[in-house]
């Protein structure tokens, strides 16, 4: 785990959220990107090949716009509760940081269900 700056502010807008970090950096992450990169065991494998990834993307984009409820998970993560769509993912602060910086939060690694 590399050191990342502390997230100090999360502001929810209608279709995206603004993240402010302790080092003064600020980012905007769209809910579509957030939901597309859901780390749960059901969504993750969908991103393994282009075809299913595209359909996950379409699915996420077709969901009605809504502001999620945000919950803190332990010391190290956030979860987002949506009325529609998947709310299972636990987003570690590292994941959110990667997303904010436009990096692939999966680090380019395919997800293998329960069989690493």
């Amino acid at each position, binding site marked *: *785990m590399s050191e990342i700056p502390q997230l100090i502010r999360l502001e929810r807008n209608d279709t995206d959220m603004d993240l402010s970090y302790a080092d003064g950096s600020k980012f905007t992450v769209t809910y579509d990107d957030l939901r597309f990169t859901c780390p749960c065991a059901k969504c993750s494998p969908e991103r393994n090949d282009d075809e299913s990834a595209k359909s996950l993307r379409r699915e996420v984009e077709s969901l009605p716009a809504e502001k999620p409820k945000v919950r803190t998970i332990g010391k190290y993560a956030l979860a987002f509760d949506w009325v529609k769509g998947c709310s299972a993912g636990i987003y570690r602060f590292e994941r959110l940081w990667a997303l904010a910086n436009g990096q692939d939060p999966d680090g380019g690694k395919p997800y293998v269900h329960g069989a690493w």
Partner: protein
Amino acid sequence: MADSPVTKHDPKGSDLLESPSPQQQKQMESAYANMRRKMAMQEIGRKIKHKIMVLSGKGGVGKSTVSTGLALSLAQQGHTVGILDIDITGPNVPKMMGLDGKRLHVEQGRIHPAQGHLGVKVISMAFLLEDEDTPVVWRGPIKLGAIQQFIGDVEWGQLDYLVIDFPPGTSDEPLTVAQSLPDIDGMVIVTTPQDVALLDSRKSITFSESLKVPVLGVVENMSGYTIAGLTTPETSVEVAGPGGKKHRVTSDKDGKFSVTLDIFKQGGGKSTAEEFGVPFLGELPFDPGFVRGGDDGVHRIVSEPDGASAIAFAKVVEAIKSQIGTSSSQGLEII
């Protein structure tokens, strides 16, 4: 209109006095019991400050040893602690807590925990067994119902910590508990440095994401075995470890030396934790005293409160406390 259910709500109330059928009565009673149990669970949730689940990918990695060790280590620090053993596949917590052969103590419909070493309150599936060597074969719904009852009907009193020992693997039990007991702080995943055990603990981590209970971290059990000896001061000693691996150490000015041998491969728990971005809570040494303690009912932490294992446990407890204490998401403003 006589047969219509609307009659029951006749404002004149003429039919209200009609007593319900035995079946209705039963339904009402069970609904009432369920409601009471739900309220009791909420109440229990409030009275217990911290709830920690202990899980492992497979059996035999030391989940119960760690559960009881954490409970005792917390009790040593002056906390009031309970331990709930719902590992139906092999509920061995009572044995480790010196409560072998105990039966469930029920008073006025409430279950009362037994008191083990250092005043730790214990409830175990083993208390329900006629014969400890016969495993219970309960079908799903009965098992899960029993667990809910175990949670809702136990008179824990005020607790600082409740440690819950689960069956190995990704079974239904953790889900039932997570749904019944509000505000679980998180789960501790126990692993050994062996590759197979590691693989399974990775499953547990993914599992936690689906349970929406955070992973407090990974504990590596049976990490290394330390041997100590005495020889001439300041001389070099060679010790042959597992697989013929040679370890060279120099004794100190009193002639004492110690070497930690890798029984399995060391450090696997740490790399799993790192790979998954979850905290690593520490290593517990391989200590034959745990096996003896499990057999004669005196836990290692009780028989040797200042020993290396007790110290290792205290460190793991500190790491857990720092996870459930002030969080780094504290100070985060969500708008």
